[in-house]
């Protein structure tokens, strides 16, 4: 098999999905008549600035699944999220999100973009940030809560409820610039959750956190995924803090993707097939996975944000 054949083969591979989670969501879907997959890519390709980032990718994210998108820097992980949100056009294939074209159902998607932390001088409270997630896209000036009657009370109750869900009640009334990275991340997850989305799209939510917070935010995301029945599509560059919580991983490399359970995908065989060069997956004493031998993506793969 030549190298390009290997890549093409890899690009269309979806490993047999985890039986348990598929079985979980199927009866639901049959009852409501909603298509099974929350996100579905069929031979999808994306080009940015005339360069193909990845192509021929086919995969499905089911309702209520916690899925991580992994891969080396510059391989198009964030681009995949943007394609799902309809912020980046496809150059080929098809993407369906909640049964519609990308971008059509964004009201039912909670999005947390890749970011640096809020500036320490940002003088706006966490609770205001969460509230903007609820109705910030509506034109006009909100009336004060006591003038809006039951509607205003309901909105305030929803904001308080979701802040409590992520455990941010203690610092939600502080200026967000004065909150720590972990606290900001929790408040932003609350903002993404406030409209009861069916899908959470999180771009590197663990990136600026220390090890303790990486673990607790990962646990929080899984908890939200289970208790709210929301599917999660999360970009990460290190799978280890997420390992105990994930249902599926999507591994992007070399212009293609492989999807399956972490145990299936993060193996020497699968990754060797995906990259087309020999890759080793090592496991240390604490059970952490290390992928060895992956070629670095060329530096021009770094996409403008």
């Amino acid at each position: 098999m030549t190298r390009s054949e290997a890549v093409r083969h890899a690009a269309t591979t979806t490993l047999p999905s985890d039986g348990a989670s598929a079985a979980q969501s199927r009866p639901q879907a049959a009852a409501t008549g909603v298509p099974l997959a929350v996100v579905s890519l069929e031979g999808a390709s994306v080009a940015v600035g005339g360069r193909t980032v990845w192509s021929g990718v086919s995969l499905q994210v089911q309702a209520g699944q916690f899925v991580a998108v992994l891969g080396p820097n510059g391989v198009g992980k964030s681009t995949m999220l943007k394609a799902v949100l309809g912020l980046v056009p496809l150059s080929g294939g098809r993407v369906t999100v909640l049964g519609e074209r990308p971008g059509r159902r964004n009201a039912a998607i909670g999005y947390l973009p890749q970011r640096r932390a809020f500036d320490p001088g940002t003088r706006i409270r966490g609770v205001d940030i969460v509230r903007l997630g609820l109705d910030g896209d509506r034109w006009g000036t909100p009336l004060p809560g006591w003038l809006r009657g039951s509607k205003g009370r309901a909105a305030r109750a929803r904001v308080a409820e979701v802040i409590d869900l992520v455990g941010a009640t203690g610092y939600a009334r502080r200026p967000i610039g004065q909150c720590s990275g972990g606290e900001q991340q929790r408040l932003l997850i609350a903002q993404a959750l406030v409209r009861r989305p069916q899908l959470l799209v999180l771009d590197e939510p663990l990136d600026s956190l220390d090890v303790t917070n990486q673990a607790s935010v990962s646990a929080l995301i899984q908890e939200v995924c289970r208790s709210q029945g929301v599917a999660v599509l999360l970009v990460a560059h290190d799978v280890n803090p997420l390992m105990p919580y994930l249902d599926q991983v999507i591994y992007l490399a070399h212009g293609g993707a492989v999807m399956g359970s972490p145990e299936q995908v993060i193996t020497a065989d699968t990754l060797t097939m995906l990259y087309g060069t020999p890759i080793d997956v090592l496991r240390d004493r604490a059970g952490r996975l290390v992928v060895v031998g992956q070629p670095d993506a060329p530096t021009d793969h770094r996409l403008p944000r």
Partner: protein
Amino acid sequence: MSSGLSWNLADDVRQMLVFHFMLNALRAGTIVAVVAGAVGYFMVLRRQAFAGHTLAVIGFPGAAGATWLGLSPVFGYFGICIAGALVIAALPSGGRANAGLGGYGEESAVIGTVQAFALACGFLFVSLYKGFLSGLNNLLFGTIIGVSDDQVLVLLIAGVGCLAMLMVLARPLLFSSVDGAVARARGVPVRVVAAGFLVLLGLAAAGTSQVTGSLLVFALLVAPAATAARLTARPALGLTLSVFIALVVTWAGETIAFFSPYPIGFWVSSLAFAAFLLATGFRAVSDRHGQRRSRASARPMGNRVAAGAV
């Protein structure tokens, strides 16, 4: 001014309002303070003070040019400030708040260059229009006796229009100011909102210039908003405080200017500066107090994180 101060507040105010120019100055000041306080709050939040400064400064060549051509300076102010706002909005990332980590890199250089050229043009227009030299100080630093009835009317129309547009934009503007990427994903037309806000900023700068002069616009556009932001982190309260401080500073500044021999621009700016200093002091004290309190309540140390990657 020639009038004496009797230290009887009611008498003094009555004495002041006898003069029609003073009534007009207070009317214009009130309109301008409300608009500048409200628009300024968002400008400070979006960190677009540099764009605001530029719009204020280019008002000077606009007004000087209009006078040279025999038009009312009012049209010069509004015309050039709105045009300038549209040009900044059309720059590649000029309209964006917090444009990435670099902020305005290239744009600030371009805007700064244009700003210097605009000031030079203003000075040229002043010298082309002979005998205008007494007006130069007024254009740059404001005057208390210069506001005509027509000017008040134009300011009122512009002010009401500006506030109405701000009320329509307010919520998506706040959203895209603090969280642009999420707002865009939620379907807020971030670029349109940003361009609309720059036009509002141009209107506010043009209006304020006519009371404080081009160089002292920031006394009303930045200082009250920055003061309010130091006092509260609540958006609605911050906006209200900003307008309130701008109003108090304007009324007090105009009154003191009436009873003293020194110009209005100086008094308004000094009062605004004093308010800002007081708020900064208040913030420093309450922050230290808050830190001590939170240290006492011994928060889990795991929450302290180096924030800032990527």
